[in-house]
């Protein structure tokens, strides 16, 4: 299904605007291109050192890249992180499984539902909780909305890195529609805390499905507008095509996942490869491009956004009725409406809050496809109500690490573009 890629036939690429389908390069060609860039830094260089970040206006968050420049060419990069380190893993060891959910919001605060979801999937795997069908569909919808909002924000910031400031604001304008949906759904716009172990915390409100459908129908039009604005623009093409090449082998070696990996021609998408939630019940295509450069990462994300809209539409049509939280007294925090009426549920509530859920001994590693890449959650349980060890292998951590080979031999002006294209959020990096 996935993996080896450069040999599988791929359908004629559907370019809405702009140039016709580009010829697909072989992996050797890509490597040669990358080698040409690296060639620039061979030998001795007289350099000046500048510090991009943590206060640089275009560094995404408090990332620091100390860059040695020969003229405008980057010779060496020394990345530095940790300015946003909050010790999430230590916190997890002192919180019950339920209490940790709001903390996961703060990992990647631009796609916090995805973080909730990844954590809950891992905990459910550990506990063996069966999630009801309705909850799985709601999770899928919310996750795709989250992906849309993340990618739209990414797009705005990324194009702004190239100097087009209008893009940033129009992307923010359209992200509002999705945030409004989230606000209606769970009461928060940014830190959702919507997922629960065994389902979701609230059912879809009235009218929500209708509004969500409207957004899913309306966003592709906006995407077409974005593409009219930027996709064929000669300046953007010049700035993006052939820049920041990272081949599939490099991506694996540096654990680069998500759209960046897919832009290198690897059809790896955990939604297909290790389906979770309702992804095995919806029909969607994995967006793949083959040039492994900044422009193809843009194309991959544009395609993904369209796919997300289609997934949302399918899920809204097929959402089954039924409970949205598993009926599992040992592991699930009961719903408020039952707590208020039912003595057993109230006891369950007290037990879960004061004692925590009953968890088997063991360890699980569960990875899901969050908007930025693959997020893995590793939980070691010693049978207590709190994890013995919890590690979140967030995509941005590894993306931030791969910066030196990505920047090598590129120009200082492209550094921001490349850094934007791999989509790093510092809350995700520093944890």
């Amino acid at each position, binding site marked *: 299904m996935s993996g080896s890629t450069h040999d599988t036939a791929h359908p004629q690429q559907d370019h809405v605007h702009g140039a016709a389908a580009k010829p697909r390069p072989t992996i050797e060609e890509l490597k040669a291109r990358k080698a040409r860039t690296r060639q620039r830094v061979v030998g001795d260089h007289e350099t000046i050192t500048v510090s991009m970040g943590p206060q640089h206006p275009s560094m995404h968050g408090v990332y620091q890249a100390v860059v040695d420049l020969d003229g405008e060419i980057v010779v060496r990069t020394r990345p530095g992180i940790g300015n946003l380190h909050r010790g999430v893993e230590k916190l997890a060891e002192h919180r019950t499984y339920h209490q940790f959910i709001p*903390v996961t919001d703060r990992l990647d605060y631009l796609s916090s539902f995805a973080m909730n979801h990844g954590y809950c999937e891992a905990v459910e795997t550990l506990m063996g909780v069966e999630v009801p069908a309705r909850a799985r569909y709601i999770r899928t919808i919310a996750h795709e909305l989250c992906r849309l909002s993340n990618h739209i924000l990414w797009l705005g910031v990324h194009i702004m890195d190239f100097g087009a400031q*209008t893009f940033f604001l129009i992307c923010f304008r359209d992200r509002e529609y999705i945030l409004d949906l989230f606000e*209606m759904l769970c*009461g928060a716009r940014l830190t959702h805390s919507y997922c629960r172990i065994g389902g979701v915390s*609230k059912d879809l409100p009235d009218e929500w499905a209708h509004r969500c459908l409207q957004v899913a129908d309306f966003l592709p039009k906006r995407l077409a507008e974005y593409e009219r604005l930027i996709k064929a623009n000669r300046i953007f093409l010049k700035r993006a095509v052939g820049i920041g090449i990272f081949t599939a082998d490099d991506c694996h070696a540096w654990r680069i996942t998500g759209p960046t990996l897919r832009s290198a021609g690897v059809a790896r998408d955990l939604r297909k490869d290790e389906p979770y939630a309702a992804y095995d019940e919806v029909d969607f295509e994995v967006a793949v491009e083959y040039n492994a450069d900044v422009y193809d990462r843009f194309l991959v994300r544009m395609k993904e956004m369209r796919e997300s809209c289609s997934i949302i539409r399918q899920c809204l049509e097929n959402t089954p009725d039924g409970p949205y939280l598993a009926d599992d007294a040992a592991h699930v925090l009961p719903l408020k409406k039952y707590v208020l009426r039912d003595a057993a549920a109230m006891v369950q509530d007290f037990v879960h*809050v*004061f004692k925590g859920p009953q968890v088997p001994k063991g360890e699980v590693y569960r990875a899901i496809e969050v908007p930025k890449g693959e997020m893995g959650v590793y939980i070691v349980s010693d049978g207590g109500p709190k994890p013995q060890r919890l590690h979140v292998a967030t995509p941005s951590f590894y993306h931030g690490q791969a910066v030196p080979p990505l920047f090598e031999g590129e120009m200082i002006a492209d550094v921001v573009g490349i850094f934007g294209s791999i989509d790093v959020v510092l809350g995700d990096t520093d944890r």
Partner: protein
Amino acid sequence: MGLKDIIKKAAFVEIIQGMSVTGAYFVGPKVTVEYPKEKISVWPRYRGLHALLSDPDTGRLNCCGCHLCATICPSQCIYIETSEGAVDGRKHIDTFDIDLARCIFCGFCEEVCPCAAIVMTPVYELATYDKGDFYLTKEKLLANQVNAHKELIKR
């Protein structure tokens, strides 16, 4: 590059296309909400400032002093002190303080509360000049119940 492409490039086709988009925004409707003058209304589920509910008939606090909210709170921002000995056999809530500076508005307190006492209201204007204002006492929380959503009170 064919002749067509060269002509397209020389005529700045794609740049004019892009400028037509911004040009359409120029004349089109604006999306700005001029915040202090006009305010957006939030959805009923909005997780804003907390409120403590009391019984509309008797005026008695709904809270039963079970400490569930204080225990589940991931940022440990709720402080409750209770004492026994009220006339009707219920615990008396001496203090019920929420430190907003610590609160992360996750809504867990509302979710676990077994007697529908603590709710979150759609009040979102929390900025203040004095840090002390972030420390909400029982009286302040009770006073905020007028902002609570009607359905929550009925429940």
